[in-house]
């Protein structure tokens, strides 16, 4: 069970076990996150990969306690930096957000408040956690802006978000995340809305910063290719569960779960030219009526009767876990 594969606690920054977030809607209960477990050490980069709707963002929001109204979160164990997050008061949680645990959202054009200047949005983030003067907060903002490689940061502070390009805005968002030197940054698909060259720039900055500051990072994406070069470890999500997790090399090189196989081989490239792409049939199931047992079983090329029983995560190699009755390398 969960505890069985728990890594030795100790230098664990984040220790999540059995995290569940569900939405009670009129049609029924949507289990957006259905008992996932994550462990992150300091300075580690975790790639969280999965299809749209698999619950990646909700995982991030659950950790930040930012899940919207009908949503409810609970966990067997939710420790961050030695704190039991489930015991925190709302005010303590607010203190935590943005200070120890920061988040970067997907679309930089909607996350920055369009009617507030950049400096306002940065200064308030500093002042929300530190009793400092505006000047000091501003100075801090300037410093961080420089760190994320923004040219002429002084000018950028005085403009509104719409004056900036998408890449620039995302860098501002990264800077805001870094303002209070958090221990963990949750980046929810921060480059999906950006161009390849700009994405490259952002990845470069993030990689550099994580190395320099030792900040841990959860990088949420649906593109395995991105995290393969960035993350230390990768977790693959499907329908609210983690179906496979391991080091980047293990996942990319020796994926065990059929879903991971599908993800890997459906990526088009110049090498797949001239061949049909491998495709996972069907589409993402609705979380309202998942098939019994393994949720992937209706799309799985290895599915059998056994799959109607819930599979459990099993360690296939040190640090490499997969939850499938028919796990194995792709033929």
């Amino acid at each position: 069970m969960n505890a069985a594969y728990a890594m030795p606690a100790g230098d664990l920054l984040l220790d999540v076990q059995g995290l569940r977030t569900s939405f009670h809607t009129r049609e029924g209960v949507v289990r957006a996150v259905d008992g996932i477990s994550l462990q992150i050490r300091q300075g580690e980069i975790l790639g969280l990969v999965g299809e749209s709707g698999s619950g990646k963002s909700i995982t991030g929001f659950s950790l930040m306690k930012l899940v919207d109204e009908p949503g409810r979160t609970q966990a067997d164990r939710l420790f961050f930096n030695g704190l039991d997050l489930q015991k925190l008061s709302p005010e303590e949680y607010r203190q935590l957000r943005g200070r120890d645990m920061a988040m970067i959202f997907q679309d930089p054009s909607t996350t920055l408040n369009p009617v507030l200047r950049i400096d306002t949005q940065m200064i308030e983030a500093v002042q929300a956690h530190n009793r400092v003067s505006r000047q000091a907060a501003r100075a801090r903002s300037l410093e961080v802006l420089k760190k994320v490689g923004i040219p002429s940061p002084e000018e950028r502070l005085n403009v509104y978000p719409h004056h900036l390009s998408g890449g620039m805005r995302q860098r501002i968002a990264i800077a805001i995340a870094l303002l209070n030197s958090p221990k963990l940054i949750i980046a929810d698909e921060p480059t999906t809305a950006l161009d390849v060259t700009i994405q490259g720039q952002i990845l470069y900055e993030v990689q550099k910063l994580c190395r320099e500051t030792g900040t841990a990072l959860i990088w949420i994406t649906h593109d395995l290719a991105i995290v393969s070069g960035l993350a230390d470890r990768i977790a693959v999500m499907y329908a609210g569960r983690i179906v496979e997790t391991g080091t980047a090399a293990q996942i990319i090189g020796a994926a065990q779960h059929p879903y991971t196989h599908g993800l890997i081989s459906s990526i088009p490239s110049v090498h797949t030219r001239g061949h049909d792409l491998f495709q996972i049939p069907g589409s993402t199931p609705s979380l309202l009526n998942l098939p019994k047992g393994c949720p992937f079983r209706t799309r799985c090329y290895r599915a059998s009767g056994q799959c109607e029983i819930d599979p459990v995560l099993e360690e296939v190699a040190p640090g490499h876990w997969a939850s499938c009755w028919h796990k194995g390398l792709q033929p």
Partner: protein
Amino acid sequence: MADNSSRPLEPVGTASTQDEAPLLSVRGLHRHFTQPVDLIQRAGNFFKGRHKPQTLHAVAGIDIDVHGGEVIGIVGESGCGKSTLGRMIAGILPPTSGDIAYKGRSVAQLDAGARREYQLGVQMIFQDPFSSLNPRMRVVDIIGEAAVVHRIVSRAKMEEYVAGLMQKVGLDPAYRFRYPHQFSGGQRQRIGVARALALEPALIVCDEAVAALDVSIQAQVLNLFIRLRRELGLTYFFISHNLGVVSHIADRVAIMYLGRIVEIADTDTIFSCANHPYTQALIKELPVLRTDQRQFDPIRGELPSPIDPPPGCPFHPRCPHAMDRCKIERPLLKPVGESPREYDLLHGRRNVHQSACHLNDPGPMEKQ
């Protein structure tokens, strides 16, 4: 020759002959967007000459030939004019200047019948599977409306016709009375494909047709495109910012930068020996699966504003090899590399590798 065997996608029915004219040929195509200057602003100019019309050169002179049965990939950063080009080709947007010729005849001078043939013959598939389908129409109407309007089928036969199309794109015809919101993204994109196919087009412009889809669904749709091409002998004008997708599907790739094509060549050529520094950078940035950690080393700078493009080579502010000349003189698209390859000679195609970069010119040193 062994090389050729790995090209199972060669269209079956449309083996091109030596002297066949391109299906579509674009010459000197421009598209400007102007904020018009009204009377009062002009009066204002009289005193203070400030209000020049702000002209945005979305497409600034493009020549390209599309041959029957091939897939041309257009790649470039956001805002470089890919969609504008695609829309002009599809006849939705009139060009500011330049000429589009369909089956050898200039579109501007077509008579009504031929114009209709062109308009129906070139169809488009859009990026956003959500906003490109009218949320208040049933699938059967979305797909069949135009075919009925253009008398391709009678109203009575429409359902049958639509059912056939749905089958063709892998949708269950039983769903034809549903509304778009009842479909998933991938299914919607198939509806879009069926809508385009309904008019029996020869050329389909795919504007970021898979960009909004998940990897697994993207694979399904890409496979569908390839299958349809094979079955129907379609020609694709495939626009994407994702070099990976383009490399998978396209025969030829054109790289656009700020409204111009900076490099065009066979897909293999582009990936094996990219000539333009921008192309090289793009290929380097391309995220690929790897088992090791990667050192990111991006090109600096951002795409300049098309309203106020840099003089000379538009890429020079970001180019690691920029020279003085690049700041003044805009390089022209010229053939590069060795003589046309065997394959091209065989097929009489003029799709030689071309690139617009001063580095290809014999430098002053060499000249001496």
